[in-house]
């Protein structure tokens, strides 16, 4: 009997305990990010070989201080633990604790134990015991807890094998009993009545269900309503929760009294020195803005080369496919729908990966918590939280990961405002649009001898994005009538050197999540747009015949004729008809139907604007470099006035439109997912759209 066996192991622990490092150490790159059923939080899973013929599927649960949740991330932990009767239940739970804060970490451990699931306690950062003046009697601790305890130093790769052995032992012995019988210490009669309602579950499980309205998936409607009914007749829920926590700490203090000793005189003062600098009233801010400048500068410097290469690579691939595959619908779909669609996703990877790299570094070192501390009061004036800073910075790469980064903001109103205003920050998809329009309307001159006027315009657009996000937040703060208390507590972790393995895996995982999350939408819209652009009513089908007949007397090269056909086909395609039908609406902004088509196409991703205009102006894809499109755009004439189409007023109007309008289906879809309603994405779509329209209108009318 030597068949392979697979068990489920969940990692749970406080933030900053090295839980994710342990996960990375156990699973390496054998990870995948999935979704928890019914909820939106990413589920990180990986596999690890425990011993011969025994493999573990390891789930990395979001970091939490307790199983009583205060944010979306944390409610996942509770939900997962309550599903202990389902098939996907965890066979063993590993509670990862940090030697420095063992007391607080044991609170979570005591809660898990009371759920009566087999548990291993893994105490990390054991290598720092001596430096921190800590002594721990591990044998006695094991005895007092009645549980396997393993000492780890994940960063030094120590203790991993011992942990694996302990997991296997715990799995086989399957011993699971509560550590604190809290019910007996609070109100035994009350908890007896609770247990009578549904003896299938343990008292602690029932208690968690009624205090958090969180139920296992397998529970029936009748069972649920019986529990809710009991809850509604309970007066002292909150008081009992307090008592429970106090009792747990009493028990933990008793256990630690003889096993865990700290000589605080050995504590290092590196933390206090760095804190004095990073949270200083003046230097703190200067440093933060310096860090931001370095990040943005690097994103531009490092990302531009790979982005150019990707852009050129996909354009070449497209024309290669076009020339070498037999002509037909399929080839056209591949070369004009799918390849540019995939290219439109890949092009963002350099900027997004670089930004994630910085954010990950800042979080790993512990600096990010100091930024949250510095910025909280300021952000609160705008209805947000100090934790909103991270999404707003991420938004400069892409709004999609930024919206997902709001999950640890505990106040619903603060989180919602952050989600709603994040798309105003200048994301990387706006850059190609800005770049080409700025090149068209702003002279390449220096002002004051040093500052480049074009660069200055780009910088103003960034500032415009941030400023609008702030103003929108203030308005939402004043007008939104959303319930939900906000509660703010941030742990200020010790400063530490980042682990490059963690940073690397983090960047890879987040980038992958972006590609597969946003990518699906960008790709499918590209295909829809391709269909709309390559099909049309009867007039579309007649284009080729009409043009060939009309030009038969003129001395034109076949090349020129083909271009005319392509351009006229687009005009008569469905998307051309759409562009023409919105022309009356966008004319007051200075746009014609061709720009209209580009605006519609931008819903796939804003940067599609450039490519669409290139097609409309029938620039052939094989010489699709920026100068040709730019030259072609520069020579486009507005037939009504006889002057350049992309003159200063139109260009400014377009810049303002792209700064404000919500032209990104992928972001709308993510906002829907995160807010669980179409209401908020629709408010974004129409609110930002109206703002864009009005502002562009004013800009165009004043300037022209």
């Amino acid at each position, binding site marked *: 009997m030597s068949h392979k066996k697979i068990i489920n192991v969940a990692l749970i622990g406080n933030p900053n305990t090295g839980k994710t490092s342990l996960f990375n150490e156990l699973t390496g790159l054998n990870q995948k990010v999935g979704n928890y059923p019914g909820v939106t939080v990413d589920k990180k899973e990986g596999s690890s070989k425990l011993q011969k013929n025994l493999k573990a599927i390891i789930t990395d649960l979001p970091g939490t201080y307790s199983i009583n949740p205060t944010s979306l991330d944390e409610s996942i932990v509770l939900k997962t633990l309550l599903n202990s009767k389902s098939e996907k239940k965890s066979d063993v739970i590993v509670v990862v604790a940090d030697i420095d804060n063992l007391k607080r970490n044991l609170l979570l451990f005591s809660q898990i134990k009371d759920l009566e699931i087999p548990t291993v306690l893994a105490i990390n950062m054991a290598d720092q015991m001596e430096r921190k003046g800590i002594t721990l009697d591990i044998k006695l601790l094991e005895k007092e807890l009645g549980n396997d305890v393993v000492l780890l130093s994940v960063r030094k790769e120590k203790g991993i094998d011992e942990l694996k052995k302990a997991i296997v032992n715990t799995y086989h012995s399957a011993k699971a009993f509560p550590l604190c019988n809290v019910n007996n210490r609070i109100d035994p009669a009350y908890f007896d009545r609770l247990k009578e309602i549904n003896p299938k579950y343990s008292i602690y499980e029932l208690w968690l269900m009624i205090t958090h309205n969180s139920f296992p998936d397998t529970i029936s409607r009748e069972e649920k309503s019986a529990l809710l009914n009991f809850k509604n007749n309970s007066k002292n829920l*909150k008081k009992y929760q307090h008592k429970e926590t*106090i009792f747990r700490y009493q028990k933990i203090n008793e256990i630690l009294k003889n096993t865990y000793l*700290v000589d605080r005189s050995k504590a290092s003062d590196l933390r206090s020195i760095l804190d004095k600098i990073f949270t200083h009233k003046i230097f703190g801010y200067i440093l933060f803005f310096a860090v931001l400048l370095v990040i943005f500068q690097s994103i531009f410097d490092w990302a531009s080369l790979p982005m150019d290469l990707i852009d050129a690579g996909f354009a070449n691939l497209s024309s290669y496919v076009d020339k070498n595959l037999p002509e037909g619908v399929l080839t056209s779909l591949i070369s004009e729908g799918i390849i540019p669609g995939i290219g439109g996703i890949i092009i963002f990877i350099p900027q997004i990966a670089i930004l994630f790299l910085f954010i990950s570094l800042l979080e790993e070192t512990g600096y990010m918590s100091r930024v949250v501390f510095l910025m909280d009061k300021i952000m609160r004036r705008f209805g947000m939280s100090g934790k909103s800073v991270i999404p707003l910075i991420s938004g400069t790469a892409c709004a999609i990961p930024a919206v997902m980064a709001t999950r640890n903001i505990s106040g619903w109103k603060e989180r919602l405002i952050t989600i709603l205003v994040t798309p105003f920050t200048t994301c990387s998809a706006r850059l190609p649009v800005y770049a080409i329009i700025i090149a068209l309307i702003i002279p390449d001159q220096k002002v004051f001898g040093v500052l480049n006027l074009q660069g200055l315009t780009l910088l103003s657009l960034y500032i415009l994005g941030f400023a609008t996000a702030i103003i929108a937040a203030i308005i939402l703060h004043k007008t939104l009538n959303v319930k939900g208390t906000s509660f703010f507590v941030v742990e200020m972790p010790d400063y530490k050197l980042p682990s490059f393995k963690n940073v690397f895996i983090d960047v890879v995982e987040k980038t992958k999540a972006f590609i597969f999350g946003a990518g699906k939408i960008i790709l499918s819209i590209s295909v829809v747009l391709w269909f709309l652009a390559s099909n049309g009513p009867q007039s579309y089908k007649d284009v080729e015949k009409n043009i060939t007949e009309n030009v038969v007397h003129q001395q034109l090269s076949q090349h020129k004729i083909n271009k005319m056909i392509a351009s006229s086909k687009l005009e008569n395609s469905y998307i051309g008809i759409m562009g023409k039908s919105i022309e009356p609406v966008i004319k007051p902004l200075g746009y014609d139907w061709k720009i209209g088509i580009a605006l519609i196409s931008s819903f796939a991703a804003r940067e599609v604007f450039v490519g669409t205009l290139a097609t409309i102006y029938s620039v052939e894809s094989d010489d699709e470099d920026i100068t040709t499109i730019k030259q072609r755009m520069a020579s486009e004439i507005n037939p009504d006035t006889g002057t350049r189409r992309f003159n200063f007023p139109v260009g400014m109007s377009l810049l303002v439109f792209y700064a404000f309008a919500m032209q990104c289906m992928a972001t709308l879809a993510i906002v829907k997912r995160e807010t669980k309603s179409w209401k908020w994405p629709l408010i974004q779509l129409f609110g930002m759209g109206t703002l864009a329209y009005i502002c562009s209108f004013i800009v165009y009318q004043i300037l022209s």
Partner: protein
Amino acid sequence: MTTIASLHIGELAYISEESLNEIPLKLLEMGCLPGAEVELIQIAPLNDPLYICVNGSHLAIRKETAAKIQIIKAK
């Protein structure tokens, strides 16, 4: 009423029993218990949030929360 919000930087105090039910559960769970020693480490610019060390945990909390937690100042 003496609360954490009235501490000066570097000052030590003990959390009193009186405000037990005013302390948010999450803070209790993070070690902010009656009887625990608390030190104010830093105040953010604009006087909010506060950076405290309680029971070995370093936490940033808002002033409104701090003002709910009664203390007895250490002599």
